């Protein structure tokens, strides 16, 4: 039997309902424009904006890191869910900028939201898709009745070497999802998930290296597109669905162009992608990117509408999810008094490159 046939025979469908009972985001208020970065490096801003489809990006404050952003996003998620934090049985924080190499971010988050001590927690790393990996782990744990609620967070203050193309996109942000199993509590049901993973070294950061390395154009076709399309089309096949069955698509968004290009390659209407595309105005929040895109779409989607979200993490892999907004969304959305993604995006302050250098601790003589 071929490996593919073996796999198809062992395909497992979700047997217990699992869903999102609340979600929250966090984006730092500082922004730097592509023009400002281009000015410093002698680049033509229009070429950058056109080439990357990114106009400005978020910048964390000096005292913000992947942990603080994760805490704020998680608090928003709990506020929306209307649950008590001690009921959370697991916290997973996915990031590629965990503040500590050894010492979990997840325990900081669990403590800060008041979920300790009776829970399990761990950090995840899979470049930009560690957040969605956390969602999948929580899905398994709630569906198997190991826990009642699981909290999955994607959070990053991503790095870009000064002068590298990454500097125009690498930004900061987080999104948190509370996963539960009681349909009455759902704001959206996760109908199915499918992942696509290979060993593809398109982007990496070695131990003790300050900035990541990347394979230039290799990050495109053999990495991003192969995996995003592999997972998305795999999910279609697994569920016997097609592009027309979905109202929104959210793809990992390392820049403003790749998600639209992926959609075109798969015959998906780009108008279904644009509502969940935030990288052009906040940059690439790495582990937060597709989760923030999903949160942005959940904020506007109507009950019954379907969303397909596919993350991508270099190294490389993609997780696809088929999500249907439930009737419970309306009441929780109306009751929620915290900051929404739209609030975070609107609440901004521009900084120049000098302040940016201070915020991102790029000044080495200090």
């Amino acid at each position, binding site marked *: 039997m071929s490996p593919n046939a073996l796999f198809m025979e062992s395909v497992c469908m979700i047997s217990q309902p699992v869903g999102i009972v609340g979600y929250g985001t966090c984006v730092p208020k500082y922004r730097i424009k592509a023009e400002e970065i281009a000015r410093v490096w002698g680049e*033509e801003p229009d070429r950058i904006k056109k080439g990357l489809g990114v106009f400005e990006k978020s910048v964390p404050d000096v005292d913000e890191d992947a942990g603080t952003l994760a805490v704020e996003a998680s608090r928003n998620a709990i506020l929306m869910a209307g649950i008590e934090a001690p009921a959370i049985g697991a916290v997973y924080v996915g990031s590629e900028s965990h503040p500590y190499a050894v010492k979990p971010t997840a325990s900081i988050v669990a403590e800060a939201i008041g979920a300790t001590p009776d829970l399990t927690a761990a950090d995840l790393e899979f470049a930009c898709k560690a957040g969605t990996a956390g969602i999948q782990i929580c899905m398994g744990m709630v569906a198997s009745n190991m826990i009642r609620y699981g909290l999955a967070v994607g959070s990053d203050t991503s790095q870009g070497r000064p002068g590298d193309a990454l500097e125009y996109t690498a930004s900061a942000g987080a999104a948190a999802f509370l996963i539960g199993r009681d349909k009455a509590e759902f704001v959206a049901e996760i109908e199915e998930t499918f992942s696509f993973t290979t060993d593809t070294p398109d982007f990496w950061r070695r131990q003790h290296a300050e900035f990541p390395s990347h394979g230039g*154009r290799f990050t495109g*076709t*053999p990495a991003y597109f192969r995996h995003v399309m592999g997972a998305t089309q795999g999910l279609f096949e697994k569920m016997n669905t097609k592009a027309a069955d979905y109202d929104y698509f959210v793809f990992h968004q390392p820049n403003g162009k790749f998600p639209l290009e992926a959609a075109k390659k798969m015959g998906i209407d780009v108008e279904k992608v644009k509502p969940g595309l935030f990288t052009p105005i906040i940059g690439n929040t790495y582990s937060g990117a597709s989760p923030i895109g999903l949160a942005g779409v959940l904020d506007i989607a109507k009950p019954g509408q379907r969303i397909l979200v596919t993350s991508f993490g270099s190294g490389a892999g993609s997780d696809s999810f088929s999500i249907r907004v439930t009737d419970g969304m309306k009441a929780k959305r109306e009751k929620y008094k915290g900051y929404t993604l739209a609030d975070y995006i609107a609440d901004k302050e521009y900084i120049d490159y000098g302040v940016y250098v201070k915020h991102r601790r790029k000044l080495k003589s200090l």
Partner: protein
Amino acid sequence: MSKFGEEWTRGYRDMLIEAGSRALADCNLHGEEIDGIVVGTMAPGSLVGQEHIGALVADFMGLNPVPAIRVEAACASGGVALRQGYMAIASGMHDCVVVGGVEKMTDTPGEEVASALGGAGDQEWELFMGATFPAIYAMMARRHMLEYGTTEEQMASVAVKNHRNSSKNKYAHFQNEITMDTVMKSKYVATPLKLFDCAPITDGAAAVVLMPLEKAKKYVEQPIEIVASAQASDTLALHSRASMTSLRATQAAAKKAYETAKVTPKDIDVVEVHDCFTIAEIAAIEDLGFFKKGEGGKASLEGKTALNAEISVNTSGGLKGCGHPVGATGVKQAVEVVWQLRGKAEGRQVKDCEVGMTHNVGGSGATSVVHIMKRA
């Protein structure tokens, strides 16, 4: 040939085996009939960490114990390999030689590739001082503009024409047409050369089979005869030359080739020239005698080098359109001319193609190798 391009899923060996197998299939040749292998490759040590390429090819083509050698002459490695193969047959030492050219370039970061390619110039006087190849050819372009009034538009027209040709070549790296606007609005790499004036970094391999003519006739219906093989050398560094606008090695090799083949530039129907930058094609069509010195740019813009115009230049798409896996280029040029002479250049066939030429340059002109071929 292997498909040229960013071949992420194929390695050095895969490509050369693919090209070699296709060349053998083209002439219904069995491995045991081969008695020599020559491979042109420039920098596999720097680019993929592999040396000892002759043995590698014999091994992975399943041809042991056939003797195999690697030839290196920077970007002219392929053309010089072809000449070495030709000499092996012409000397009577060998009866059937496979000549290959290969380079795997996209597994290496761009700056490391630029540094490896920089070794084609004078390391101590050029590369060490920061002069990369785009910079060296940019100086040649500036001088050509000063001396002859060559313009950026004229150079751009070379890229447009080569993309038009490569759009009809299924083996080409770029199979899309571009406009003058695309070239003129592209970013400067080293003024006056813009991104679209420069040949890309490409993976690829090409191979040909050489035999004495009478023997070749028994294997294929349309053997192609190499009627001249000439090579010349010049100073390694650009600054040591009397002229920055002419490649003396090209002029010397061309003169020798025309004399040997007893033809003139007017007899050539198709020519594959070394256009690592658009200015290089302009200088080449002058140095090879197709146009007077200083008129290459004007002739290009006027369309005189287009397919089936005055002289069909770079019907494969050249280095700009077909791609430039450096060691493979010189052999690919020969493959294209063979297809043209056989009437098998689908979609880009030169009419009544009788005589063809290849022109392969190493560095900024320190090595130049010219071949003239005819229908046998």
